[in-house]
């Protein structure tokens, strides 16, 4: 609450300032800013060529039949009609959602715990922050190969440990759930630090006065966390949930490296993006690949909105940012 009170005033003022100008004057003013526009243009030019154009083209492709080289042929809704009946697609959607839940929930929970711990650390602050961030900037391919070795069924370290404490071997990469657990574990390892750093930034904006007042009123640590920290962190949690959704629903590299093009045992590592890649680039069915990609976009949008609604729920208008 204290957060939003400081942030809100700036916005209405800016809005009223730009309002009264008439259109021609605004255009002239826009023109007079050309050096600034020029300065930011490289990003937009590159984005238009390498971001926007491919997106638009793949939208067009979704309604075509194309093998990559020859003439493409208009297919209407054929690709989408086939997709609805395609069991492998539904399997890939199921895999994606399961892996996403299995990775995002522990990631964000752990990140919050880590952030609270980091916030109370007095020494080696930057060291911890760096240490937790490093997994995020490490190559996913390298980590995947490493996790592949770690979770190898017969000669992996994890199974060696399990056997040492008397539990049996688990066929991690040869079983339906094992594959998902390994992919989720990898994602958790890679993204917990990143989210913790974001949470830490959020925690640091919470005024210590609030904590002191709560302590004076006799609140214990748990109460402080759930009554003060968590509500104030809501916008930041929303941000991380959205980012994790967008990223998690597009999981690709991890299963590709861990289980290869087959998708692993029972194709249980076959995610939506992986399936789209396989159809387009291995099987040269670019039109169908593009159609799957469009559905990926839809699913990501849907779940982002859903998350937004869920996390925002029960929150009064004043704390909105």
């Amino acid at each position, binding site marked *: 609450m204290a957060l939003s009170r400081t942030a809100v005033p700036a916005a209405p003022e800016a809005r009223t300032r730009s309002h009264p100008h008439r259109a021609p004057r605004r255009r002239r003013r826009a023109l007079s800013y050309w050096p600034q526009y020029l300065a930011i243009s490289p990003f937009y030019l590159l984005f238009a060529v390498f971001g926007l154009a491919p997106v638009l083209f793949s939208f067009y492709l979704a309604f075509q039949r194309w*093998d990559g080289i020859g003439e493409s042929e208009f297919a209407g809704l054929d690709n989408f009609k086939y997709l609805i009946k395609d069991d*492998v697609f539904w399997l890939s959607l199921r895999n994606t959602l399961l892996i996403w839940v299995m990775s995002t929930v522990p990631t964000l929970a752990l990140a919050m715990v880590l952030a609270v711990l980091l916030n109370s650390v007095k020494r080696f602050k930057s060291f911890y922050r760096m240490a937790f961030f490093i997994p995020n900037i490490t190559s996913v391919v390298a980590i995947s190969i490493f996790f592949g070795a770690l979770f190898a069924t017969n*000669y992996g370290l994890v199974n060696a440990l399990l056997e040492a404490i008397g539990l049996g071997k688990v066929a991690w990469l040869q079983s*339906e759930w094992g594959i998902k657990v390994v992919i989720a574990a990898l994602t958790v390892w890679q993204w917990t630090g990143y989210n913790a750093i974001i949470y830490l930034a959020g925690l640091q904006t919470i005024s210590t006065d609030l904590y002191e007042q709560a302590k004076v009123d006799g609140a214990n640590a748990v109460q402080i966390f759930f009554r003060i920290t968590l509500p104030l962190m809501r916008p930041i949690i929303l941000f991380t949930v959205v980012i994790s959704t967008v990223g998690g629903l597009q999981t690709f590299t991890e299963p590709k490296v861990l289980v290869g093009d*087959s998708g692993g*045992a029972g194709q249980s590592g076959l995610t939506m993006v992986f399936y789209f890649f396989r159809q387009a*680039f291995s*099987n040269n069915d670019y039109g169908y690949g593009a159609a799957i990609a469009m559905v990926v976009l839809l699913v990501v949008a849907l779940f982002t909105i859903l998350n937004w609604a869920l996390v925002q729920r029960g929150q009064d208008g004043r704390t909105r940012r």
Partner: protein
Amino acid sequence: MTISRRRLLQAGLLGLAGAAVGTTAACGDDDSPTGGGSGSESSDISLWYWSGGLSDKVVADVPKQFPGITFKPSQIGGAFKDKLVTTISSRQFMPDITGIKGEDIAYFMAQAGQFLDLNELGAGDLKSQYLEWKWKQGSTPDGKLIGFPIDIGPTALFYRADIFKKAGLPSEVADVTAAAGTWDAYFDLGTKLKKALPGTFLVGEAAEVFDMAVNQSTKRYADADKKFIGDQEHIRRAWDLATKAVKLGISFKVQSGKQDANAAMSQGTLPGKLGAAWVALDIKSAAEKTSGKWRVAPMPEGPANQGGSFLAIPKSSKAPKKSFEIIKWLLDVDNQGRGYTDSALFPSAPAAYKLPALTAPDEFFGGQVTIDVFGPAAQKIPVAYESQYDGVLRDPFAAELSNVESKGKDPEAAWNDAVSAAKKAGERVGVS
């Protein structure tokens, strides 16, 4: 030193202008004549291949052999086929000569119009020097040669003689050859091996047996008339063999090439591997310490081919004749021998099998002369029509096979599901 604002803007504008000029210049390329039968060929020749696709030493010798040309070889990393497809689609920066991987040849064969018919450039005279089935694989059904043979992948059974001996199985090459003549006999060896040394498996995974058995057939998933034949006897046989290996419990159930399989090969718990000649390199790097303990025997029920690539000349090449001269030299008998030594490229020209490079005993295989196995195998590869849709049609079989192997799905139910899924996928691409 500080840079003034004006200076920075000027530099930025110059850069933008430069980029714009570059783009228009590149577009201009499109107007220049493509192909060209005239004598005034360009003397700039570019070659695309991938790391290990050709012997780097032979490639480096091209300028010495052809002093008149400017030769620009590039090793294209990553997904080679995708980059070639993108370049062909954009019609820009096309190489004069390009490699095509064996698994992609059927796809490019359907795009034969993008490449020159090498027969028209004189390849016909060389036909007798190369393996007939390989030559056919690089030719369109109407006889245009699109891909000139680089190497082939004749398959064999790689096995650990020491482990076989320990299990009381035949271990000498001649004895194993006699004992593993059929798939059933081979599976028997697997059963005995497992009984003698529990935890030891002869078969890496069911898909290994399945793919090898399919490759042994003269038919695959679709015929030249785009008819689906994946529900026929030849695929069923491969399916039955693969599921039998699972049922007998002699499959190690791990993906080949992954850490588990590699570790098992050096530990001795996976003392067998069905693979092409180039698999020798994989085993050598995966199980370095087991040098001298491996042997090569013929594959049960005859050889198959797996992999092996081609060189092609895109139709946009500005110097087709010179390009073909280079291909001819790059892949002549002597250089095929060098390719084998440098990059384990198994020659597609049988005359090379008599070169010292190939007849030398291999220490990793206990001094065995492996060409004695691979040479005759190379000559006996069954010719099958390869459809560009084989990949799409194979996916459901591989998926269901993995269900049988990892989830214990009933093989008969899995077969029915695989066939109906393959049919459905086939209908989408026009195979029925």
